[in-house]
């Protein structure tokens, strides 16, 4: 039975271009306090553009209604549980938004004098310190703009260190359970990717690893807990194998939410890792970004971190560009500063004990879901999990219903789907990450919905394969979209 939602009226809305009528405006500018300018005279007629054909012309209220109406067609954490595995969709405290908009922080220019930037630089310093403490690593850069950008930065650090030793090496080892950004990053950093097959428990196979590890391997990229939500219990052995060949261990920190306050990557053999501030530290995902991808390292990689580095002088902060072994810059200025402000506010609000409690609740919530759903869905790797749990559609696909179908049906029950078909090592995966901010009530509603869907698969599978039924947009034809791409409006 569907208990969480019932339908309500939503407004129709055209594209803004179709709402336009000539002469309408939604902006105001002050009267000019200087003489008017003649663009053709100042720029040369050839440099001046004509009217922008098809550009919107609408009033302010039309803009507000346009976006408000569109917003009601979205699902969001603010509406309910969003159990997308690997994405850590937790509640985003609004205080973080408020402090990021404080005038002195939001309107600081990256080139203003350091004497007028000390408040902003303190944000950087405080966050650097907290993240080093949380990861157990020695040093950090906050410059990367997202997780994948952090991966690239981290692998470039490894490359720079190996190059300084005389040989950048050729290969990066990537487990077959890894996220797509890992191999893509290795490729962009100029390395060949070698897949490492997981063992029958879905974990790094030490024998396979020992076989593949040699002096051509620059690094292993490992996700821990891995994408099955399971802690790689042999991680320290794996690190020893790589270190014995002079290779580095890179950790994809997308799943750090399972570890904060409980275990530190720096203590289990990791040399370098990225952190997704938009996951673990709750800066909002915003429909796909922005994020923050700080990269933390052990001492031996620190000399290669991007410039500028924040220097802590006796009574002031300063930016230091004089870092001879640095890989250079990976992004202009100092990174997604506004995201850093939000992450620091989150850490201050929780404090050390609060962060650990969040970890405990996240892991407890995911285990609760595993126990409640195990009778209904196949668990390909039935092991204690951490912050997320991965089922397969084995039982349901026998009836012709796939993980993607059940995901769509979940929408009718008032939830965002779980992550579908990832990790690739699980055929027909249902990857569920509840996060710590869901209450038992919400979890129980979710569990009921999943059980109800499992029953529907038995009794009326067509209802599931044709879902969703309650949304204003029914199942979307993605195949046609890709065959004849229309990626912009035209008059």
């Amino acid at each position, binding site marked *: 039975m569907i208990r969480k939602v019932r339908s309500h009226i939503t407004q129709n809305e055209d594209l803004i271009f179709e709402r336009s009528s000539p002469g309408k405006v939604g*902006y105001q500018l002050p009267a000019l*306090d*200087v*003489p*008017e*300018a003649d663009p053709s005279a100042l*720029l040369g007629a050839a*440099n*001046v*553009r004509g009217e922008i054909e098809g*550009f*919107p*012309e609408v009033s*302010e209220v039309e803009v507000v209604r*346009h*976006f408000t109406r569109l917003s009601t*067609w*979205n*699902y969001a954490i603010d509406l309910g549980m*969003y159990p997308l595995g690997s994405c850590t969709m937790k509640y985003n405290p609004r205080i973080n938004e*408020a402090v*990021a*908009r*404080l005038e002195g922080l939001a*309107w600081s*220019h*990256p080139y*203003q004098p350091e004497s*007028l930037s000390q*408040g902003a630089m*303190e944000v950087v310093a405080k966050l650097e310190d907290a993240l080093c403490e*949380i990861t157990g690593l020695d040093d950090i850069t906050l410059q990367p*703009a*997202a997780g994948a950008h952090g991966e690239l930065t981290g692998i470039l650090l490894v490359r720079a260190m190996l190059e300084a030793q005389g040989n950048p090496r050729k290969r990066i080892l990537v487990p077959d359970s890894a*996220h*797509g*950004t890992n191999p*893509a990053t*290795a490729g962009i950093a*100029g390395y060949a990717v070698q897949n490492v097959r997981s063992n029958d428990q879905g974990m790094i196979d030490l024998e396979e690893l020992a076989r593949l590890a040699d002096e051509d391997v620059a690094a292993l990229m490992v996700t821990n807990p891995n994408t099955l939500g399971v802690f790689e219990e042999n991680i320290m052995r794996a690190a020893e194998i790589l270190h014995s060949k002079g290779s580095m261990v890179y950790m994809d920190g997308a799943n750090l939410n399972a570890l904060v306050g409980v275990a530190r990557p720096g203590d289990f053999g990791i040399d370098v890792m990225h952190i997704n501030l938009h996951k673990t530290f709750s800066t909002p995902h915003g*429909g*796909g970004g922005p994020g923050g991808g700080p990269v933390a390292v052990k001492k031996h990689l620190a000399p290669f971190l991007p410039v500028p580095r924040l220097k802590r002088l006796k009574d002031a902060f300063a930016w230091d560009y004089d870092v001879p072994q640095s890989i*250079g*810059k*990976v*992004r*202009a200025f100092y*990174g997604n500063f506004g*995201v850093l402000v939000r992450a620091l506010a989150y850490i*201050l609000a929780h*404090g050390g004990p609060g*962060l650990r409690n969040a970890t*405990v609740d996240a892991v407890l919530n995911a285990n609760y879901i595993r*126990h409640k759903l195990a009778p209904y869905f196949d668990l390909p790797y039935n092991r204690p999990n951490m912050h997320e749990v991965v089922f397969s559609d084995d039982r349901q696909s026998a009836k012709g219903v796939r993980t993607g179908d059940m*995901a769509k049906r979940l929408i009718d029950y008032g939830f965002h789907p779980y992550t579908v078909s990832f990790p690739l090592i699980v055929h027909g995966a249902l990857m569920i990450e509840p996060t710590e901010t869901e209450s038992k009530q919400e979890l129980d509603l979710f569990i009921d919905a999943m059980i109800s869907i499992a029953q529907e698969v038995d009794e009326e599978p067509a209802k599931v394969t044709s879902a969703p039924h309650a949304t204003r947009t029914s*199942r*979307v034809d993605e195949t046609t*979209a890709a065959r004849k791409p229309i*990626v*912009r409006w035209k008059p």
Partner: protein
Amino acid sequence: MLAACGLTSTDQLFGQIPAEARIHEALNLAPGISEFEIVDYFKGLSDRTSNGYASFLGAGVYNHYRPVVVDTIVSRGEFLTSYTPYQSEISQGTLITIFEFQTMVCQLTGMDVANASMYDASTAVPEAAMMAVRITGRHRILVAKSVHPEYRMVQETYAKNQGLPIEEFGYDAETGQLDLADLEAKLSKEVACVIIQTPNFFGIIEDVKKAAELAHAHGALLVATFSEAASLGILAPPVDADIVAGELQSFAISPSYGGPFAGIIASKEKYIRQLPGRLVGETKDSNGNRAFCLTLATREQHIRREKATSNICTNQALIALMATVYLELYGKQGLRELATQNLAKAHYLGTKIRPHFSGPYFNEFVAAAPAGKTPEGINEALLEKKIIGGLPLGRFYPELSGATLLCATEMTKRADMDTLAEVFHS
């Protein structure tokens, strides 16, 4: 809940982590604080910044007014707290705003297709160069010295690890525009692309057409970048470029000490399958209604893995939404008026302080400090009047160490420009 999991203590939840990998004492972080204390703390930090100062800094980050409505929209939880719109049926709101964003980026730049956003221009430029390398099968990259120095630094970091040789070509010491002879001399059959910026780092408008002709004559692509998007309200779009990679910070995105911003990448239609990042396309739902979804995903890392066009996953969606709301508010007429106001302000300042270069400029220009003065000295004197001066150029261009880069926008007040000119000349 513990009991339902067959456990008796929360510690057992972590039983799979080997003891030697666990920490046994608390993190060395203070206990949590209340909302009031957090506001109080960050207000204190905010006060220890440039708050209350007028500023003539541009150089890639611009002060433009942000209409209140922009924050109203992006604060809506349905936009703020949703993920990437992979589940189209419950993400049409986000998908349509991205489709409108892609459309307006095309309209502004004169390109045929644009993606859903990049981190910023400094990372969009190397992504464009990588596109050009894939398209042409060549490896050399030529970059104008008048491209933003930080974009060039990021380009360098990306390229040096892929074995892509980079060479810079100069600018004309008189006009501040591209040194086309230098460009021509450095072009060859190995060059994948030529990267230029317009208005360039000195605020000067480039001849994109000429640069494109030279590049194309040698079989190379032209990549055009920009950091001052407001210029597109009045300037002819860079239609002769093959790829445009730029920055939309000017459109309602606060300077925020350098980020988050919204980069764009756009190109000619024929290169669509080489674009990095996400793309939204139009289609229909099973009832035949117009609908939108992410498309051409076979370019991307989650499908293509090490053969993807880029490793980008999370982009700058919410910031791109800010720019989208802004562009729809300003619209056809507003964007032109905005650009014209910027032009008028900067040229008023240009009558008080003589521009160093003779090329046409939009809203910033280089000025040489009067004899016996330094840009740094002038800036010191301005700070006493609560004014932040221009960017002294010596740190990026040793040959311009006596010069400063000054910017005026619609937010710059005439009285502050008069004070600046007075201090400059006094």
